[in-house]
């Protein structure tokens, strides 16, 4: 309950920010932070709470993005319908990948490789079929207005991603306080013990990947509406998959606030490296890699774990 209060309070503050911040540059930064936090929380739901490490969340992200884009461009449907269809399609892709992998008991690196393979297959498919615009990509026509889920001001997009991220964070909170979440974490910590207590590990993991895939798809919908352009490399490329897992790993895997913490940290880090090194290609990626190694070595529970350690030390020092 305390976590829920903190979460709601935090999002109320975040939601009020555009009233005080008019700078597009700052708003863009905040949008990117919330977008990346959403991606990270989506991955965290499956990996952090469910223990299934995916290396191919782009499969869900890209499906959501193409869902909303293709429906608008090829069929002339409203992006609101596209949002629903895109998220549902991402959920279906997740259900399929989950059903195939979990039915055959794939775990650990095997599961990671299978998800990566599916994302790559989808990238190649979207590169070769005509209705996605193939390699040229797909351009959503500019038609600002709430009905078209496009906004002339950054604040509009900010509130859109704010609402989406809020939904994902509430879902993660729910996992901490529900039967489904308890079972998901039980399967993560010990699958046999969970099954012995009547938990259908297969169904629970399937539920986890679908929930996770839907939120990744939601991030894809946002991306498509924000940039109004997609190509197979953006939608299904490994960059999104890596971003999805980097954020919660840095912030704190399996924690409610970890993805937000990771998103803020990585954003600040990439801004700093850009300031120092300019746009020299590869530098920011190299620094990302170095940060990841340092975190895995010294902070296996991410920055959220750092907070926990120091809080515990403080408490023990006070009591001593």
């Amino acid at each position: 309950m305390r976590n829920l209060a903190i979460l709601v309070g935090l999002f109320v503050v975040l939601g009020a920010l555009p009233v005080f911040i008019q700078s597009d540059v700052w708003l863009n930064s905040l949008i990117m932070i919330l977008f990346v936090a959403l991606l990270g929380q989506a991955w965290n739901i499956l990996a952090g709470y469910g223990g299934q490490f995916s290396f191919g969340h782009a499969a869900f992200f890209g499906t959501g993005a193409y869902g909303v884009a293709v429906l608008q461009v090829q069929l002339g449907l409203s992006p609101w319908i596209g949002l629903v269809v895109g998220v549902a399609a991402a959920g279906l892709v997740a259900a399929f990948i989950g059903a195939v992998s979990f039915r055959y008991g794939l775990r650990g690196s095997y599961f990671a490789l299978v998800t990566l393979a599916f994302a790559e297959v989808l990238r190649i498919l979207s590169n070769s079929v005509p209705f996605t615009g193939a390699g040229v990509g797909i351009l959503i026509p500019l038609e600002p207005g709430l009905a078209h889920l496009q906004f002339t001001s950054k604040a509009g997009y900010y509130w859109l991603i704010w609402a989406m991220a809020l939904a994902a964070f509430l879902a993660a909170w729910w996992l901490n306080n529900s039967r489904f979440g308890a079972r998901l974490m039980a399967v993560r910590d010990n699958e046999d013990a969970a099954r012995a207590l009547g938990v259908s590990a297969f169904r629970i993991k399937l539920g986890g990947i679908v929930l996770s895939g839907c939120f990744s798809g939601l991030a894809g919908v946002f991306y498509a509406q924000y940039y109004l352009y997609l190509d197979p490399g953006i939608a299904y490329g490994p960059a999104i998959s890596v971003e999805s897992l980097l954020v919660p790993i840095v912030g704190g895997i399996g924690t409610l606030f970890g993805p937000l913490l990771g998103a803020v940290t990585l954003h600040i880090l990439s801004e700093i490296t850009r300031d120092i090194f300019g746009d020299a290609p590869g530098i920011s990626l190299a620094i990302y890699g170095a940060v990841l190694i340092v975190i895995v070595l010294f902070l296996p529970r991410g920055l959220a774990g750092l907070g926990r350690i120091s809080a515990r030390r403080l408490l023990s020092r006070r009591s001593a």
Partner: protein
Amino acid sequence: MILSASGVSKSFGGLQAVRDASLDVEPGRIVSLIGPNGAGKTTLFALITGFHLPDAGTVTFDGADITGRAPEEIARLGMVRTFQIVQPFAGQTVRDNIAVGAHLHHAGRREALAKAEEVATRVGLGDRLDMDAASLTVAGRKRLEVAKALATEPKLILLDEVMAGLNPSEVRDVIPIIRAIRDSGITIVLIEHVMQAVMSLSEFTYVLNQGQIIASGSPEEVTRDPAVIEAYLGHGMAEQVAKGAADA
């Protein structure tokens, strides 16, 4: 009979772990399964609870044929096992661990947590609810195994060596807990090496050796059975034990 296994067999590659084993458990009893190390006791538990698929034989529980069903289905029917090598959800609190079991029949988080607390008190973990399960002592972890299973509100519970590794005073503490579980109407089947526990708790005993049931009866009868003495102490020992008893 609440549980009966008949002619159950299982082999792993060339090793016949369980051979044509049959056992019957009457409701409301404490039945024990004993036998030397490697006799196939845990494998038999795994066959009964769906963790392994038997090569032959049938298992019926509470009137239903459950041969080959998944462990989670069997748990839902009311038969749960504990693990010899304790399997806590490490990193979660004792309360959360037990709540996973309680969730089987309680969808709400609050009811499950309340049930977890109640069960923890029954097995003597009431004062350690907020501890990390991984930081419990061996005795504590064994109790946690029992608590998780108990929280599913089973009809029958299979306890796999819940007293192994405990010191005599800890064993003395656990025995009344197990008796209280039975008195609450839950049938118990236990695998145990601690003979003190077997003798004082169980009303009926099966002896497994090299995958086969070699004897059954009351614990007193079984421990006098020459086949059982030979299984534990070696060939020819039954005669020597009998002679030793006669000389004394």
